């Protein structure tokens, strides 16, 4: 009889926190994570939005349900971990703005007048605080088998640092934080950081594990091709990502996509898609600009930023299209995203 060895290590788990209302690349990144899951290369272990906006939470729920290929329960379904359908959202006054990206999805009606996409989220209590959700999901992962991707304000993620005992847990579980924000080595203040400078400053200063920043220059150099929306998503009669993309800006356009670069680097950091800066320290200035200082510095050189390699551009954009337009991943086993 053959001895049974240790269970195989599951694919890397990605906790994604994004500004789904104001960044179409964050919506695309959720789709990309589905593409990775379909290929068995990554698991989305947590989905949270980075601004307190109920409609954004509803859209996150719509995406979660769409890619699950079935209704997913946010109230029960967590075997060994928080349930897969749970959506995280920061504490704080709920935003009153309704970006077009969100309303396009939530108000879309079928011919019979019924909503095309449905969400079980109707009020704040239907969401989890994203700091707690991210912490809880990290705890359910094997050591160094999780990555956190942020594509929005750091409001919620910075609060993870305030949770008692969370720092050693981050060090143990999250081998990398990839932040799609800022501009490197220098540039104008960027929206995600400007939206909550204090939180961004705290995150860069105190995140206890390695951090890679993906600046707006990467997103601009590697945009998502708008033409793909009209051709690659036709397999679904209604596709929330395509609808969001069309609503985000007047078509045709190619969307700056630093969140996609961040997600790709998170899952395949060693596959040569990008170059990395030398180690250093990123600080956030009062006006929201980011500054990179090479060398060990205060943070032991834990920070780097991503650099576009022109030789990889075509390969990357093709991969973007394949992953973002992928059909839902096959339904996982009973344990879902748990390790």
């Amino acid at each position, binding site marked *: 009889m053959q001895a049974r060895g240790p269970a195989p290590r599951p694919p890397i788990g990605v906790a994604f926190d994004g500004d789904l209302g104001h960044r179409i690349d964050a919506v695309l990144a959720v789709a990309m994570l589905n593409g990775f899951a379909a290929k068995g290369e990554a698991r989305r272990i947590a989905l949270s939005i980075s601004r307190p906006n109920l409609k954004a939470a509803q859209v996150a729920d719509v995406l979660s349900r769409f890619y699950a290929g079935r209704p997913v329960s946010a109230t029960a379904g967590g075997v060994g971990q928080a349930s897969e359908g749970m959506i995280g959202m920061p504490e704080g006054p709920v935003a009153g703005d309704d970006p077009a990206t969100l309303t396009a999805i939530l108000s879309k009606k079928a011919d019979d007048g019924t909503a095309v996409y449905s969400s079980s989220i109707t009020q704040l209590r239907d969401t989890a605080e994203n700091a707690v959700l991210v912490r*809880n999901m990290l705890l359910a992962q*094997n050591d160094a088998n999780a990555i956190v991707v942020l594509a929005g304000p750091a409001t919620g993620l910075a609060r993870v640092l305030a*949770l008692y005992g969370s720092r050693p847990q981050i060090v143990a579980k999250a081998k990398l934080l990839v932040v799609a924000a800022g501009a490197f080595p220098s540039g104008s203040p960027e929206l995600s950081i400007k939206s909550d400078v204090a939180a961004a400053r705290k995150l860069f200063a105190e995140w206890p594990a390695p951090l890679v920043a993906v600046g707006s220059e990467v997103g601009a150099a590697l945009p998502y091709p708008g033409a793909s929306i009209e051709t690659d998503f036709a397999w679904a009669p209604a596709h929330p990502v395509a609808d969001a993309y069309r609503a985000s800006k007047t078509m045709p356009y190619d969307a700056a996509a630093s969140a996609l670069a961040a997600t790709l680097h998170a899952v395949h950091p060693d596959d040569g898609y990008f170059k990395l800066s030398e180690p250093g320290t990123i600080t956030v200035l009062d006006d929201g600009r980011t500054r990179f200082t090479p060398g060990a510095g205060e943070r032991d050189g834990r920070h780097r930023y991503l650099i576009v390699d022109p030789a990889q551009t075509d390969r990357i954009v093709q991969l973007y299209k394949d992953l973002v337009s992928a059909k839902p991943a096959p339904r996982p086993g009973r344990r879902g995203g748990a390790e």
Partner: protein
Amino acid sequence: MIITGKTLPRRTFLRGAGAAIALPFLDSMFPAMAALGRRVAPPVRLAFMYVPNGIDMKNWNIEQEGAFSAPFPRVMKPLEPFRNDMLQLGNLTHNSGRALLDGAGDHGRCSGSYLTGIQVKKTTVDIKASISCDQIIANKIGQETRFASLELGMDDARQAGDCDSGYSCAYTNNLAWRSETQPLPPILDPRVLFERLFGTGVVLSPEETDRQALYRRSILDFVVNDTKKLQTSLGPTDRRKLDEYLSSIREVERQLEKAEKDSVALNPGLEKPYGVPPDFAEHFKLMTDMLLIAFQADLTRVVTFMMTREGTSRSYREIGIADGHHPCTHHQGKPDLMEKVTQINEYHTKQLAGFLERMKSSAEGDSNLLDNSMIVYGAGLSDGNRHLHEDLPTLLIGRGGNYVRPGRRVIYRKETPMCNFHLTLMDRMGVPTEYFGDGSGPLDPASLT
């Protein structure tokens, strides 16, 4: 007993050979305040009452948030008379009860983490949890009472062995932990509890114990001289209060004597302590009657009560259920088993209702004992069939001394740590604590008050 001047010390005991009975709150303990028409606020008491194997959530959760308006669902139904005395809390979660890579053993984890707030070590040997929140409170306020805390149970107090997939019985059978390696086993035997509450701690020889048992008299007989002396110094109201209180102790004694006789007559081979009644309801009533007296006489302000141990397979023949509780909860959707779970849950809340009625009937100044208490009733699992650790069934009963605004269903955000509730309770008990378990901060006070 020494009475000096006109003020009766709060810590007055009626003493006799081998007996020491503490007194309830009497007006004459605060004559100066009474003369000014002001009352000293009675202390706030806290009890955690734990039921195992989750609860039938479909028949537990009240759908509507806010003030209770609709009739209670089936498991809550026995608590209808107390709808204005309680909060039903929703979405409290114990992440540390989840597997988090430790595999099977949800029962061991859920009870181990319930008051400690941490993921306990999966072991049957070198157990490791953390100090529980009740003990943090007891450490701080316990010197004000005869017992810093009381740990009660009704099922099983084994501390060794494997009780769930590699988790020590220390995790499934205890709620209170003095330190990370030292659980506080519950008292199961009502006689032992009685002796603890009213004995002096003097160790009697076996011959003396036998003689006392043979000629057992009421404990009140031993303190009759002190009682008479005290009665002459009390006003009519306090005299009535004292009579009622001593009668309640005598009633407990009668129940104990009956239980001891029944225990021998009905179950001569039963592996239970001598004084444990075979009937669940009778056992529960005895234990809670003494819990009530302990609160009334301010013998302690902190109690944990494990109604049955986590994961128990106890049957409930009292209500015609011969199957074990735990197997029933793994019903896999079979209606007959689901019905049995509902009946067991309902049976538990019926017992709870009896206790609450007695608490509410126990006057204390202008209010009653229930008003000055916080009784937390709940379980470490919600859905016992699927072993879910979210939306844990939780009631907060009583007003906690004019703190809690009851009569409502409060639903928190998903994944709200149960430890946030513990932080809130610790705060209310006068022990503000910055961090506890995996808590992210106390609950919004406005949600409770």
